[in-house]
């Protein structure tokens, strides 16, 4: 019996990646509300890059697209139960 605690569920060290770079998407459409849902949480807030893995370049574009979608009432500004 070892005295050193071992981690029970050692998490797989999965590398994050930018889905736009990986799949070659160059333009993020603000009209596609369903797609933008992937980048907001339940309250409609934009998810950070640290969670989605998006590169800085595309995070800016995501933010721009979400802002436009909100203006056009395709996405809500604030809500409680988006998903």
């Amino acid at each position, binding site marked *: 019996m070892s005295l050193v605690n071992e981690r029970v569920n050692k998490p797989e060290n999965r590398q994050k990646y930018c889905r736009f770079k990986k799949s070659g998407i*160059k*333009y993020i459409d603000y*009209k596609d*509300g*369903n797609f933008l849902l992937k980048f907001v949480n339940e309250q409609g807030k934009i998810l950070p890059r640290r969670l989605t893995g998006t590169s800085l370049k595309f995070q800016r574009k995501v933010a721009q697209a979400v802002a436009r979608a909100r203006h*056009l*009432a395709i996405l809500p500004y604030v809500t409680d139960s988006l998903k």
Partner: protein
Amino acid sequence: MQAKIKTIIEPMELKNYETVFILTPLLNDAQMQETVEKFRQVLKENGADIIHEENWGLRKLAYPIQKKSTGFYHLVEFKAPGTVVDALELAYRRDEKVVRFLTTALDKHAVAYNERRRNGEFKSQAKKEEVKG
């Protein structure tokens, strides 16, 4: 230097734009068509080339605007000199049937994307998502 010369020769540089506007749900079909036609005229008078038009019909809004929870969405894609945008947005502001509008300049990726969208490349995907939801 070269850029300067270009502006002299070609003062009216055309750019691609896309505009979405939301009309109040109180209109009937004829009134709606009439309003859309009016904006189409505004665009044409100012020398815009309409590339594509879409009517999304009556859609639910994500949040109420002017105490209405639905609206008629319209999308127009056009190629025009920048002066058109001011004229168009002025027309939007003067018309109280318009509850929201957004005009965006399109970069080359957006133009390519819209071309594909028009050819219905994303439709099958959208349908799949609808079925899921």
